[in-house]
Structure formats: C-alpha cells, structure tokens
C-alpha cells in the first residue's frame, strides 16, 4: 500500500513546476515563433521551416565561424588550462595564488573593457585585428579561468603527489605520468570545464561585439543583428538553430567524458 503524500510534497512539486515553467516557457515560445508562419497568428497560421531556411541562407557563415571559434577556444583552453591547473595544484605558493587571482580578472572585468584592452594593445596589427583569431584571443582570455577552476577543483581532491610518485617509482617519466595519471584523474573537471567553455564561447556577445568586423560576425552578433533589423520569426528561427547546434555538442562532451573516465569513481 502506498502512503498518501503530505501536503508539503505537493506544495514543493507545484513550486518546482511553476519555476521550471517560468524558465522554459519563453524558450518554447521563442522556438515556436521560429517555425510559425506568423507569430502573431500563432499555431493557427501554420508551421513552416521557411524562416530557418532564410536564416541559414543569410547567416550560415556566422554559425560556422562560431563553431570554429568555440571548438578552437576549447582546444586552446584544454591545452593551456589543464597543465596550468596541474601546476597551480602541485605548487601552491604565494606566486601561484597570485597567478590564480590574476587569471580570474578577465571574468571580473566587463567584457567590453577586456575587448577595449585588446583593441588598444593589438589594434595596430591589422592582419590579426581583422581575423577571427582576434575574437578567439578574447574568448580564450574570458573562458580560460573556467577551465582552470573546474580542473583545479577536481585535482585538489586527489592525492596527486602520491599518485605521481607511485607512477615514477614504476618507471614512468613526466609526460607518461601526465597522460596516464594526471589527465584521467582530471576528467570530471575537464568535462565540466569543456561544457562551460563551449557554451560561453558560442554564446559570448559582449567581447565579440567589440572585437568583430563585418567579415568576422559570430552567431550571437548575427542574432543581435537579426533581432534589431529583421522580423521576429527570423530572429526566433536563428535561436532555434543556435540551440540545435549547441545541444548535440554538450551531450557529446558528456558522453566522451564518461567514457574517458572509465573506472574513475571516487574512492
């Protein structure tokens, strides 16, 4: 026999559903707007992929550029962030603490200010200034702390020194230890960091708006453009493409992380 649930359970359920609804409804409305003939007529006006096709024809370059920047940014933050987290974890001194604080500065400073700094510093290098590498630099600056922090949080809970010493006693040199001991034990942090970096980079607007040129427009900049100058259905279809693009990437990273971690369960 099931016991009847207390009133508090239903009150909590209602509150949870109301909160979830409050957050999800605008997304659903926006997505629906992207596939309706006429937003103001609603679903009665009929469904169409016309707006999606229009967006794709007009803005496909922004989608590819955003993807390229996000994936390159992810690669860069992995290459820089994981070793950096390792160094910060293994050598916790005054200098490394200062470095850790400095690293967070680009997150604390408004994106526009960071962008301005980059323009002042490198604006004189036209080839760099007008290329997508310039936006990438901004994105790496902004997202690197998230990768470092996520890895550091996981590494700090592992007795890295003991594991490394054990591997060394078994004949493993530094690179071997890094690949076979440090990285597998940092996987949960790497996955968390990768998800954050990817979503932040694809959706980054502040910095990118300042750094872009007409030839280096990313998805969020294009989205702002379409909101400002196109009909609502087109902007909504653009949002739909954005979500469709992001969702498989995020799921893919989680699955890859789970596979990589293998038997890596907390002791």
């Amino acid at each position, binding site marked *: 026999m099931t016991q009847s649930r207390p009133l508090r359970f239903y009150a909590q359920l209602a509150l949870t559903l109301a909160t979830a609804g409050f957050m999800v409804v605008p997304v659903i409305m926006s997505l629906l707007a992207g596939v309706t003939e006429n937003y103001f007529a609603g679903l009665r006006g009929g469904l169409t992929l016309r707006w999606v096709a229009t967006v794709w024809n007009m803005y496909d370059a922004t989608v590819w550029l955003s993807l390229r920047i996000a994936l390159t940014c992810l690669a860069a933050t992995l290459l820089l962030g994981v070793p950096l987290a390792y160094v910060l974890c293994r050598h916790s001194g005054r200098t490394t603490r200062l470095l850790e604080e400095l690293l967070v500065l680009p997150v604390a400073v408004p994106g526009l200010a960071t962008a301005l700094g980059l323009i002042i510093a490198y604006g004189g290098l036209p080839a760099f200034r007008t290329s997508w590498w310039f936006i990438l630099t901004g994105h790496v600056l902004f997202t690197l702390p998230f990768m470092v922090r996520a890895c550091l949080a996981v590494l700090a809970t592992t*007795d890295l020194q*003991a594991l490394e010493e*054990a591997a*060394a*006693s078994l*004949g493993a040199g530094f690179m071997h230890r890094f690949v076979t001991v440090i990285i597998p034990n940092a996987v949960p942090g790497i996955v968390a960091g990768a998800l954050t970096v990817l979503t932040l980079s694809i959706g980054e607007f502040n910095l990118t708006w300042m750094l872009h040129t007409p030839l280096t427009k990313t998805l969020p900049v294009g989205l702002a453009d379409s909101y400002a100058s196109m009909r609502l259905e087109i902007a909504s279809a653009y949002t739909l493409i954005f979500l469709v693009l992001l969702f498989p990437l995020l799921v893919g990273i989680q699955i890859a992380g789970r596979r990589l971690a293998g038997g890596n369960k907390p*002791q």
Partner: protein
Amino acid sequence: MTATTSIRLDACAKTFANGIRALWPIDLHVRPGETLALLGPSGCGKTTLLRIIAGLEQPDSGGRVFFGDSDVTLEATERRGIGMVFQNYALFPNLSVAENIAYGLRVRREDAARRSHRVAEMLAMVHMTEFADRPVSRLSGGQKQRVALARALAPAPKVLLLDEPLTALDAKLRETLRSEMADLLARLQITTVLVTHDQAEAMSLGTRVAVMSRGRLEQVGPPQELYDAPRSAFVAEFVGSMNRLRARLIDGRVELGGDTALHYRPHDVHLVNESDAMPTGRVVARFFLGGVTRYVVELVDGQRLIVDAFGRSSASIGESFGVKLGRATEVGNAVTHDAHLSD
C-alpha cells in the same frame, strides 16, 4: 629471479627549504637480498631517508646514494629500477586491479603476452586472481595492500621500498599480512628497505633493523642484538619495554638508589614470596594480555618496575611481593650523535 643489488648511503643529510633539518649525515649499507627495517617514532626522518633512496628527495650536497657500484644520486626516481609500496598505497583510481599491476610493465613496453603472464603470476602470488577486473575503489584495505605490493614487484625491481605498508590496516589483518610478507620477502630475496614505527613489524620482517631518532641512526643490527645489547638508552627503551632502575649490585645484593642505573626487560624481573627476595614491592596495576600478565610494581623507595608474568598469574593489586631481578641488559654508553653508524 630478481637481479637484486646492495644500497649504500654516504653522508646523506636532509634540510628542507623551510630550514627544518630532517636528517643528519647518515651512512648506511643494505646488503643484497636483505630486508632492512628503518624503525623509529614519527618525525625521526625514516620516511625522508626512504624517499632519498627512492629519489623522491635529494640529499643535501655531499650526500651520495649507490645501488651496487652505480652512483644514482642524480638519477630520477623513474630511472632507478625500484618498486615502492606507499603508506596509503597510491593505487591508480582510474585503473582496475590488473591494470594497476600492469602499469610498470606497460611503461617498459613489455609485449601483451608477457605482460598478461606476469600480471597473472603477480595476482596469484598475492592471492588476488579473482579480483583482477575489479576497480581498486571497491577493494578492502588488505586487498589494496596486496595489489600495491604486486604492482611494485611486477616489473622485477632491483630494490623494494616499503613505506609503513601495514600501518593503515587493523591489528588482526596486519598480523596476517605481516607473516605473508615475511614469507614473500624470504622467497624473493630482493633487497628491501622497510619503514615502520611498529617494532613488532620491524623485528619480524627485518633481517636487520636500523633504529632512528631525531634524524640520526641510533643503532643498526639484527633484531636480537638490538634487544639484548642496545647501544643507547633510546634503543633500549624503543625496542621492547625496558625498566631503568636506579640501583647498584653489591655482592649479588641490590641496593636501591644512587646515580647508577640497571636495565631489566620486564620478563627478566620476577615476583616471588616477600621473604624470598629483596627488594620488595607492591602491585599497583595489572594488565591481563592473554599469554602474559603485565604488572606495575612500586618498590619500597617509590621506583616503579614493569613485570611480565607468563602463563596464568593471579597476583592482585595491593599485594606485596619480593622482586627477583634476573639478567640485567647491558646498555652501551650513550652513542654520540655525530658518529656515523654503519653495519
């Protein structure tokens, strides 16, 4: 068969960056195939000495570490050909039992067939065959200890280093694994250095025992020599229990008091009828330990002695006895701390 080697330390001292001196210059020789137990209280520098042998710490300048005739002082740990068991085992949490044991073989690029043969051999040696595919996070403390030992031995190291390998286990399991390990070390004849603060562990596993105190070697020798002929009061009191009685022997009679001290092991002191021996004393505490009962006896002048009575013994607290002193233990002159002790 393992190609084993001797270990020699020449003037190995260690001062850490914060200025703390962990070791004074130490000379030590470990013979090929023997097990040397480094015994001492926590903070005496025994683990630092082991880490110097492993290459995980560098000795201060002037210190030298030799494996056989080769000077390995500047060799990195991974090039020394050692096997090491850490206090908390340091098993790789992302690998299974078999993968942990195979790690050192993979590093040496052993082919798959040889690797799986060796892993199976090691698993059988430590009675863990049925746990081969289990994640190490699902092992008990004793099982982890066995895997750590198998992992260290798999690549057939020249030297085996054990850092408090049984400390993390409960008393009963410690006893079982101690005897398994003693069998294994005797069979393998691999040069082994064992660090422990447990004298029973040191004495049952060590061919020789090196007693350390405050960064110095106090005495190195076979367990019985340390027990019967301690060279310092520290060794006498750290290895086994020791009574220090302020008294003199005059024509076989004991005269209490004075500045000289006589040393007696608890089993060399016996409780007899009050009229049969001098001095006399009163039992102030009694601990029944199974095969032995330990008494604390207060003598007439207030000095206290520990007395071990074997078999059934029923003296009760408050009862008075004659104290018959057996063989006194000769405790050598206090060893000067600047001396370098070797075997």
